[in-house]
């Protein structure tokens, strides 16, 4: 269970070149293990989406990957460096091994093609020799898998409701049974009832198919409930990473702590909500040292000068944090 399927090391992603570049993702290390759900949360603009698109090389211009590596470990065969794949091999790699569910289902489906066309062409592109009938059968199965009747195959996207479209995207993501599924805020546009339904189905499918999920959302409650591990991003860096329950019970990083004290809970006793003072950092003029220090209630001497490394703190084994309050006992091995 704990063997890695996707390893991100020192990934740096910029928007633009040279001096004008915005460093949206800085030296991110992250490992996704086979079959797990890794949640990714953080303030708006902290670089979550950029990370997700960057590691699949789908960032539109002016995004560029300026450093690091992304290693994919197939079930069998040697590891692959995704960043050095040729366009043709990258195309083959995509979807078959890593698929993505984008934020807005509304815009992710081509409005002028039928659902069937869009489902079938991904199968056809990767398995050109398969029989047409077999492909169609697979497409029907996929739709059924996500709880949509197969006769909706001939619909156009606009004829489906938002929830159905989102489910079609999930079905499409699973079409080639990839090892990794990346989901960028897949349910923000939906209401809670719909959201719960979709995630429920997804959890079921994951148990059946055993893919790993990188799940990005703002909704911490959802994340805590749905994922195995959670990574928190701030200012382009991962500031904390821990098993979901641990993180929820005890946040090490002051930013995580602030986040956890920012959302009201529906159940249980009413908690004090403190929030996080100040405003998010400007990516073009990042504070020196720890990016969070200007807002941190517990900032002290090294915080404004030195960037804390991400690693295992002595006081909390089994989790990673980047904060001078919890000095690293053992840096993450490279």
């Amino acid at each position: 269970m704990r063997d890695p399927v996707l390893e991100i090391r020192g990934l740096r992603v910029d928007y633009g070149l040279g001096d004008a570049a915005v460093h949206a993702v800085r030296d991110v290390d992250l490992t996704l293990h086979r079959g797990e759900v890794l949640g990714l949360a953080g303030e708006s603009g902290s670089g979550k989406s950029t990370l997700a698109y960057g590691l699949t090389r789908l960032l539109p211009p002016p995004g560029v990957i300026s450093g690091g590596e992304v290693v994919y470990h197939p079930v069998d065969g040697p590891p692959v460096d995704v960043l050095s794949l040729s366009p043709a091999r990258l195309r083959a790699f995509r979807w078959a091994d890593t698929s993505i569910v984008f934020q807005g289902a509304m815009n992710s489906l081509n409005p002028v093609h039928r659902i069937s066309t869009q489902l079938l062409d991904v199968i056809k592109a990767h398995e050109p020799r398969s029989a047409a009938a077999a492909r169609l059968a697979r497409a029907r199965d996929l739709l059924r898998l996500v709880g949509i009747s197969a006769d909706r195959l001939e619909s156009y996207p606009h004829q489906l409701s938002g929830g159905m479209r989102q489910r079609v995207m999930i079905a499409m993501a699973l079409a080639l049974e990839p090892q990794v599924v990346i989901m960028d805020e897949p349910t923000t546009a939906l209401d809670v009832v719909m959201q719960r339904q979709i995630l429920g189905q997804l959890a079921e499918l994951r148990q059946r198919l055993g893919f790993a999920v990188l799940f990005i959302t703002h909704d911490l409650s959802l994340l805590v409930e749905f994922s195995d591990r959670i990574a928190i991003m701030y200012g382009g860096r991962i500031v904390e990473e821990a098993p979901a329950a641990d993180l929820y019970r005890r946040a090490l990083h002051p930013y995580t702590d602030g986040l956890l004290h920012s959302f009201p809970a529906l159940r249980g006793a009413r908690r004090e909500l403190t929030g996080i003072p100040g405003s998010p950092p400007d990516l073009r003029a990042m504070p020196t040292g720890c990016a969070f220090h200007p807002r941190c209630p517990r900032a002290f001497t090294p915080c404004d000068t030195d960037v804390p490394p991400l690693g295992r703190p002595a006081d909390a084994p089994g989790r990673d944090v980047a904060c001078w309050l919890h000095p690293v006992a053992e840096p993450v091995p490279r």
Partner: protein
Amino acid sequence: MTLSESAAAPADEVVLEAVGLTKHFPVRKRLRDLFSRTPAVVHAVDDVSFALHRGRVTALVGESGSGKSTVARLLAQIYPRTAGDIRLHGTSTRVRGGRPFRSYVRRVQLILQDPFASLNPVHTVRYHLTRSLRIHRNAGRSAEDLDKALANLLTRVSLAPPERYLDAFPHELSGGQRQRVAIARALGADPEVLLADEPVSMLDVSIRLGVLNLLQDLKERLNLAILYITHDIASARYFADETIVMYAGRMVEGGDSETVTQNPAHPYTRLLTESAPDPERITGDGAGAGIDEAAGKDRGQGEPPSLISPPAGCRFHPRCPHAMRRCTADVPPRLTVGDRPGHWTACWLYDPATVAADAPGSAAPDADPAVPPPPALVEREDTATLGEAR
């Protein structure tokens, strides 16, 4: 400066009241409808009544498309209403435009849903606020007065120092800051009522909290009556004194916030609260089991009903696990739920006569014996534990 820091009027006075408010949007006719007598309309809001009190926040929750924004716009008189009445301090008002409209909006201000869209990208913060002050003649006489009023407004919404924000364009502000500007603009009119349409839905949790705290603060300091519209039922619990739940254009439940969220009466409210993500639900092994468990009840029918031809009777009945025959025929009236004063719901389950005549769940689409029995029929042993929340 005319903005009243503390209103003399007693708190809890009803400021704005909706009585049987109804809004039907006409839809484009199709050829075959040409010959039918009844015009096709979207029943966006049907028979909605509630009151906003001075110094209190009323939350309006419900799924997407249930008519929440429409209610807010009706109250702001941006849309003409189809039926019903809007009473400001007890007097019925209907304004169309011109001077009466302006004097109405001076007292009732609307804050729109999306902070990214509700500020004109070509104008500075100064322009937006100046306009609001000027229209409602709160700008004073001289340029100095105006500057003072602007500074005052910005400080009030915690955008300090004001000079830093006055000449900024919207795109230079963060979402939370924009939302505050939008609120400041509404305050520029020195209103008695704030209609805040999902003021935080687009924001990040930490920024969201800041805005909500601000509203809370304003309510207390200025004695405003606030209508707080949201999807996020948990935030309603925290910030609203009273919560109203809407489903498909109708009000289905209302009462004190803590009661409605902790002890929901209507099956739809229950579905809503159960579906809301809840970190407390994690069992510890982190396998996401909670998700599966809650998802079972509404599978495959998660679609809201058509509002052009809404279901007869209770609009929730096609999805309701406890639906009875009566639910498919008669619109349920407001029924008081016994647990708290002021808690009511529109559900036949709370009418003992109906329940006696008709087995709950007998008309449900796929009656599932595993579903817990309707709340009215079980003894509420958990009520006591929730009581001390407030």
